[in-house]
């Protein structure tokens, strides 16, 4: 059940990333990676195995939809999912700040693997990548923390609304 939900979240994130993200973050030099955020969330909620599987699936789909080498993004997100899940099991990452930091680290790791492999295989050049990486890391962290809080806040909010209606009656 949790795996199905994770897969659904990934698909939604990819759909949003490929359709709405361009509108939402138009004019910004920061490229938010919604799929990465979903992978990290699934990982800290479900553990390293689910995290890496989610990363694999999400990365491969993302690679398939992109024009790059199939597998490089998948490998990067697999590693991110696994390590995020591992950190989620070893540390308490329920508060916004640890999640913020985790998302920054996850984005940096993803970029390091992604850019590193492309550079290592001499497939693509990344002139001065650090500003964009830093921007993406903070952007992902901000959006991710907000999204995580909303996701976790929304079920409680609905319950409270239902409970309030019931009491008014």
């Amino acid at each position, binding site marked *: 059940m949790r795996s199905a939900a994770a897969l659904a979240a990934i698909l939604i994130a990819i759909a949003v990333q490929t359709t709405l993200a361009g509108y939402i973050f138009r004019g910004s030099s920061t490229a938010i990676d919604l799929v990465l955020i979903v992978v990290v969330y699934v990982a800290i909620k479900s553990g390293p195995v689910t995290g*890496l599987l989610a990363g694999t699936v999400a990365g491969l789909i993302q690679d398939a939809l992109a024009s790059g*080498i*199939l597998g490089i993004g998948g490998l990067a997100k697999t590693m991110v999912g696994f390590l995020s*899940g591992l950190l989620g099991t070893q540390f308490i990452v329920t508060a916004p700040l640890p999640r913020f930091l985790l998302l920054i680290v996850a984005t940096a790791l993803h970029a390091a693997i992604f850019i590193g492999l492309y550079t290592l*295989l001499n497939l693509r050049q990344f002139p001065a990548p650090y500003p964009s990486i830093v921007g993406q890391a903070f952007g992902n962290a901000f959006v991710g923390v907000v999204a995580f809080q909303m996701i976790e806040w929304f079920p409680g909010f609905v319950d409270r609304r239902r409970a309030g209606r019931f009491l008014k009656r």
Partner: protein
Amino acid sequence: MALADIRQRPGVVLAAAILLHVVLISAQVNTASGLPVLQVVTFGSFSEVQRGTMAVIDGVRGMWTGYIALQQVQEENNALKQELQTLQVRLQQERAEAQRTDNLRQLLELRERANLDTVAAEVIAGAASPDFKTVTIDKGSSESLDTDMAVISPAGVVGRIILPSRRASKVQLLIDRNAAAGALIERTRVQGVVVGVGDGMMRMQYVPGTADVKTGDLVVTSGIDGIYPKGFVIGTIDHADRGVGAYHEIVIRPAVDFARLEEVLIVRTPPASRAVTAEEPKK
């Protein structure tokens, strides 16, 4: 259940996922030489597997051929030994054939040299009794052979025909006790009679004690017996003693090795003395 097991082993899953991605990436990336990384890595890895496999196979094969298959080697060894024996026999046959050819060549040379009517024959049997020194040859009266015809060989005088049949003849060797031939010492022309003594040697009789006789002197046929043509080698003087009587006691070593006699010539031309004797009544 299986999913739960996988969850208990994140390292394995991670390794599998990484391997999957590496393979996937390698399939799409070319090396500096232009070949796909997957192909290069796969080939490189598989070549090592092949090398290892071949090493194992070579080891097993070496063990098999070096130890386990020794039974087959033994069989092969036995077969080779048998073949070797066969070849050795064949070699001996070839040598015998070559020897026979050589003997026949010598016989042919003798035939041409002697300028006699001769016929070649092969010794097919030895003496029936050790007391008699005879051989049987494969030619007989069908080849116009008759009694008292001389039998010679390239080495010297062999004997005479004593019993011809249609297709074979018995030859009395010169070393037989009852054999005798007119002889002379080639160096001094001293005449005598050579007789067999039955032990492989011969004696020369009736050589005057005053005659010059030396060990090693060659003794040849004199032709006066009417059997053996003149001038054929009988043997050499082995030793000569001044006897108590008027004659030398001379022992002659035969020139012919009678133990290895194989091919001989039978002289169908009678000696001059006998020819004259035979022609005289006609006159």
